[in-house]
């Protein structure tokens, strides 16, 4: 995108987030109030929206309640715990709430293997991956695809328990450790190590627009690009190609507001490696100046029934 177009794009986004107070209401469901949840709460208050923060840990829901206070209401799902997120979404959506993001997105985005299959089905480039279900089959499949390979837990984030396996000895050590962990870690999910610049892209999608994107650079001595691991961020131009890929990825997950993570593969171009259904956006706001919380609130209220 040319510089003038980019400025116009950013200006239209900033102005669209300062809409008049709507008098509508919504719930923000959380299990930890981070910068993002507080920014959403403050954006809603600023717009004159009646907003209630609900701690997921305090929820006690009658699953047969036909007159639930959540029926017909908008719930912004912000729980960082995958299992609490999926189950509370199932409950509230089942009771008639408009949960953003909905259950399908919560289930698929929160599990790297499920997400991989959804992206593949939708024809979106994503790192090649293999799965195995025992120590023996995991070593055998690695022998077949070769090294290096990346092992990832199917559930989890912020780069935790992700390892770069450079050879068979490293693979054996990591896999042996996992055999003594919770059964979920004996579902072995390996991705190819994508050759790319030392950065990836986080793009924030709100509805049918990529509202902002950043490059995330690896921290010193670190190959992972997670901000939680000491990386740094810079603004990334939202090109037509980036927007097309991100919208396809969002739609593949049946999401509404997501953070799409992409790598710039030397051989394949943009590849999507993750779609986040409770995306963090603090660094994206800091670097781009886009009012993402305001845009999210506007979108959520437009979605309510």
């Amino acid at each position, binding site marked *: 995108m040319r510089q003038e177009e980019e400025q116009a794009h950013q200006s239209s986004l900033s102005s669209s987030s300062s809409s008049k107070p709507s008098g509508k209401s919504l719930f923000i469901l959380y299990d*930890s109030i*981070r910068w993002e949840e507080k920014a959403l709460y403050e954006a809603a208050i600023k717009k004159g929206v009646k907003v209630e*923060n609900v701690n997921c840990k305090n929820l006690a829901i009658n699953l047969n309640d036909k007159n639930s206070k959540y029926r017909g209401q908008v719930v912004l799902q912000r729980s*960082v715990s995958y*299992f609490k997120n999926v189950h509370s979404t199932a409950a509230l959506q089942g009771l008639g709430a408009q949960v953003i993001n909905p259950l399908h997105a919560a289930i698929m985005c*929160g599990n790297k293997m499920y997400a991989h299959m959804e992206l593949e089905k939708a024809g979106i480039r994503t790192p090649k991956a293999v799965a195995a279900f025992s120590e023996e089959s995991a070593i055998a499949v690695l022998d077949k695809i070769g090294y290096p390979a990346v092992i990832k837990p199917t559930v989890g984030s912020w780069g935790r328990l992700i390892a770069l396996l450079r050879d068979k000895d490293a693979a054996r050590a990591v896999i042996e450790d996992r055999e003594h962990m*919770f059964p979920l870690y004996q579902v072995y999910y390996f991705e190819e190590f994508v050759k790319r610049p030392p950065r990836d892209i986080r793009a924030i999608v709100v509805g049918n627009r990529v509202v902002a994107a950043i490059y995330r650079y690896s921290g010193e001595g670190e190959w992972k690009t997670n901000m939680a691991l000491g990386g740094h961020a810079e603004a990334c131009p939202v090109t037509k190609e980036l927007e097309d890929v991100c919208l396809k990825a969002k739609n593949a997950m049946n999401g509404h507001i997501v953070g799409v993570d992409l790598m710039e593969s030397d051989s394949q171009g943009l590849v999507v490696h993750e779609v986040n259904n409770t995306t963090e956006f603090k660094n994206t706001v800091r670097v781009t100046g886009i009012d993402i919380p305001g845009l999210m609130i506007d979108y959520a209220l437009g979605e309510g029934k």
Partner: protein
Amino acid sequence: MLKCPECDAEIKVPPDSIEGEIVTCPDCGASYELVKSADGLGIKPAQVVGEDWGQ
């Protein structure tokens, strides 16, 4: 002003703080969740990361 249960340092709670927000002790780095109390806001040890936490 609240006292850190770990090291007794003072933890300042900004006036715009809300229930559920995480505050960190400036001296020992322990994290606490703000909870409603009879005197306004109190603190309890915060869960800062869970095995299935992500985004």
